[in-house]
C-alpha cells in the first residue's frame, strides 16, 4: 500500500469528496427535522476523510488541528448543557424565544423549518464537530503510524 492509486481513482475521489462532505453537513444541520443528527452526519463526513486518505495518502500534520476541533466540540456541548442549569441540565432555553434557532413550530404534521429547535440544533452542530474530528483523527493516526500510507512512490515505480 505504499503507492498512490491510479489516476481514475484519484479523480473520482476528488470529485466525490465534496458531495459526501456536503451530504454529511446536511445531515448535521437538518438533524432536528429529518432522520440523522450529529453522530450520523459526523460519521459520513469522516468517511469522506477516509476516501481522501485512501486516494492520496495520510499527508500533512493535522493531529493538533483535529484534536483541538474535537475538544472544542465537546466543550461546546457541555457548555450548552450547563447553560440550562437554572432549570435542569439539558433544558432547552432557546426554544420559542425568537433568538437563534428560536422560531416557533406550528403544532401537528408540517414539513418543518430550519430556524427551529433551539439548543437541539446547536448541540447537533457541537456533537457533529466532535464526531468528525474524533473519527478522522482515529483513521488518520492509524494510517500514519502504521507506516503504510506515506505514498512517496507511484505504482509504476514499485512494479519496476
Amino acid at each position, binding site marked *: 500500500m505504499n503507492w498512490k492509486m491510479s489516476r481514475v481513482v484519484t479523480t473520482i475521489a476528488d470529485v466525490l469528496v465534496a458531495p459526501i462532505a456536503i451530504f454529511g453537513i446536511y445531515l448535521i444541520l437538518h438533524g432536528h427535522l429529518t432522520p440523522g443528527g450529529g453522530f450520523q452526519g459526523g460519521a459520513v463526513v469522516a468517511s469522506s476523510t*477516509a476516501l481522501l486518505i485512501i486516494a492520496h495518502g495520510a499527508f500533512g500534520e493535522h493531529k493538533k488541528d483535529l484534536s483541538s476541533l474535537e475538544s472544542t466540540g465537546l466543550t461546546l456541548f457541555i457548555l450548552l448543557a450547563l447553560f440550562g442549569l437554572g432549570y435542569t441540565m439539558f433544558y432547552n432555553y432557546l426554544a420559542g424565544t425568537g433568538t437563534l434557532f428560536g422560531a416557533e413550530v406550528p403544532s401537528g404534521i408540517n414539513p418543518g423549518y430550519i430556524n427551529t429547535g433551539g439548543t437541539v440544533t446547536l448541540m447537533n452542530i457541537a456533537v457533529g464537530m466532535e464526531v468528525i474530528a474524533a473519527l478522522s483523527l482515529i483513521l488518520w493516526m492509524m494510517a500514519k503510524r502504521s507506516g503504510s500510507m506515506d505514498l512517496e512512490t507511484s505504482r509504476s515505480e514499485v512494479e519496476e
Partner: protein
Amino acid sequence: MFWIYQILHLLVLLSLIVTALAVVRFKDLISAAISLGASSLLLSLEFYLLRAPDVAIAEAAVGAALTTAIYIFAIKSTEREEGYK
C-alpha cells in the same frame, strides 16, 4: 398480505446469520473483515425494515465504512492469518 413482510424479515435475517457465521469461522482475517462489513450492511437493512432510519444511517456509516477501514489498517500493520504463537 402481511406475510410478505414476514418473508422479507426471514430472508434478511437468514443472510445475516450466514455472514455472521462466516466472521467467526474464517482464519483469513481479511475475509473475516469483508464478512463483518457484509454483516453490518445487512444489519442496517434490518433496521431499515423495522423503520428506524437514524440507527440505519449510524450503522451504515460506522459499521460498514469506518470499521472496515480501521480493521484493514490494523491487518496491514500486523499479520493476515489468524494463529497462535
